[in-house]
């Protein structure tokens, strides 16, 4: 046992915080820059970028950019659309991808290895390269809704949701996490006669807190930042998401102040979602009793 004097411990603690804080400064400056800039008129904003003034709320400070942004574009509508599409996709994605991963890791079925290889291979396909075939497909897909049988998914919410529910990354996240869970637990409950559905619901998913949080935030980010796809399949303002909305601000004389205000506004939901998940994250860590 080493003897640790209280002073020494205090110093070590201080060093730790110092390191953490310096790194924090490196990571938070764009957000600070964005928010501070959103309070300044464009001309001052551009002059300030040359110095540390960019990070300080000094000069001509007001909320004018925010009211101007709301005047220029239906910001509330865009955020609503993005939140709706993102929220639904995340929930469905967590459910369906975890089921697929569950099946791959715990069940033994013909074709399993092939399916996993194909899923992994899809990680290599960048979305940009399949967008055109997907567009042709989406314009012809059938749907049964309130108004009966229709074809063509353009200008809807579903065309922004359904294609992105299942993706290789999310499935792979679950697969890697499930591999580390104790298989004896599953086999034991199998012997006791539990159905696969029960095992999924009562044993595996309750243990999946950390990976659910990780998968959720990653999916959230990917969906919230969608640009190319909604641009191609949505021609009506009422379904437009936030990143397409950003283009409303790139006029010939770019209003940087308004852009910063808009960006600050659309970043709030993502940050809130992450903070919320982080708490859930901590809770699930606490429940499994893992120490740092």
């Amino acid at each position, binding site marked *: 046992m080493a003897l640790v004097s209280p002073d020494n411990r205090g110093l070590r603690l201080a060093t730790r915080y110092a390191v*953490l804080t310096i790194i*924090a400064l490196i990571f938070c400056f764009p957000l600070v820059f964005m928010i501070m800039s959103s309070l300044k008129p464009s001309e001052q904003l551009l002059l300030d970028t040359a110095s540390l003034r960019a990070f300080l709320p000094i000069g001509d400070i007001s909320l004018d950019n925010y009211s101007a942004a709301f005047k220029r574009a239906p910001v509330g509508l865009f955020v609503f659309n993005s939140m709706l599409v993102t929220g639904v996709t995340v929930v469905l994605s967590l459910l369906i991808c975890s089921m697929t991963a569950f099946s791959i890791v715990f069940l033994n079925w013909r074709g399993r290895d092939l399916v996993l290889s194909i899923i992994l291979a899809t990680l290599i396909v960048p979305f*940009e390269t399949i967008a055109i075939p997907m567009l042709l*497909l989406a314009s012809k897909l059938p749907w049964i809704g309130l108004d009966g049988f229709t074809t063509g998914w353009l200008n809807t919410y579903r065309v922004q949701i359904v294609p992105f529910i299942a*993706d290789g990354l999310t499935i792979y996240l679950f697969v890697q996490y499930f591999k580390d869970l104790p298989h004896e637990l599953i086999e034991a409950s199998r*012997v006791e006669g539990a159905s696969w559905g029960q095992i999924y619901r009562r044993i595996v998913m309750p243990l999946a807190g950390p990976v659910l949080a990780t998968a959720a935030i990653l999916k959230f980010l990917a969906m919230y930042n969608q640009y190319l796809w909604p641009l191609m399949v949505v021609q009506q303002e009422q379904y437009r998401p936030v990143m397409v909305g950003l283009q409303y601000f790139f006029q010939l004389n770019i209003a940087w102040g308004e852009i910063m205000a808009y960006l600050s506004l659309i970043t709030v939901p993502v940050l809130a979602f992450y903070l919320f998940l982080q708490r859930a994250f901590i809770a699930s860590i606490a429940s499994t009793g893992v*120490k740092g």
Partner: protein
Amino acid sequence: MATSSKLTSSNRAGWLFALPGFGLMVVFIILPFFFAIALSFTNQRLISPNPTEFVGMANYKSLLGVGMITLEPERDASGDIIRDDSGAPTYPKLRNFTRKNPDYPKLDGMREWTSWQSGENRTYVLARDVVFMRAVLNTLIFVLVVAPVQGGLALGLALLINQRLRGINVYRAIYFMPVVVSIVVVSLLWRFIYDGNNGLLNNILSSLTFGAFSPIDWLGNPDTALGSIIGMSIWQAVGFHMVIWLSGLQTISPTLYEAAEIEGSSKWQTFRYVTWPGLRNTAVLVLIVITMQAFALFSQIDVMTSGGPLDSTQTIVFQAVERGYGKQDISGGSTISVILFVIVLSISLIQRWLTRERR
């Protein structure tokens, strides 16, 4: 025997669980990708009144075609080599051989990719599409730098942030902030920072060196542009992988750490023999995800440099989009994506094979 197969083999349940996810992927990723593969053997345009024709491997040849030519130095009337001011021999212009020269039909339309001296002569490697070759090379550089650096830094941050300290959640949130902001937005912000005249980076560097540092046009200089984009990309995405590492760290059983503590192992030993083995699956995941994302490098390029200056930041996906959409050559764009797919697939197969051998 019967019990064991009942335990583990369950075709019906297995497919039932996997089908919703796998089925959606077949419809929305795999089928469109097969369509893209089919397009790469045609001359299909994004929009055109001309009929689509099967062209075989023509798209692949025009992207990947390479050639070689060795030129003798120019000589004056007396047979002496003509040298330029610095004393190096001069050579006839390449364009005399590669443009509409009936003696060299195979080289028609090619451009210099690289060259070297062999005695008095100079040997040129020519490529039918030099820009694409640059794109492949740049992408590989990007992947080779970003994968280890970003993965390592992310692990360091995850370990740092996994401590039990008061207020650690605040830091955890801050480290993740760059990920929360869309890459398009981050690229816009960094353009201000990298600005060549009065950008923040130049100003900071010049005040740190008391003015000795002369400003660099980070994105406008072919020597620094790719490096600048690499730096920004690592900074932006490192929090993403930190989160994946973190969730991996959570799966390591606390009893192992307790045992290590009782054994009196050092911090490094604990990491080496407890933490790292426990992160094996996570490490594979992080490496694969970073590699895939790095190969898909596009948004940063699109916002910050459009592939310039002098092709120093061309990438494979940027070229695919530029051709497929910008130049309406959807078959050319599809060909590039198939080539990318083959490159990445071979790399991961080689990776797999290597790791399998070692075990």
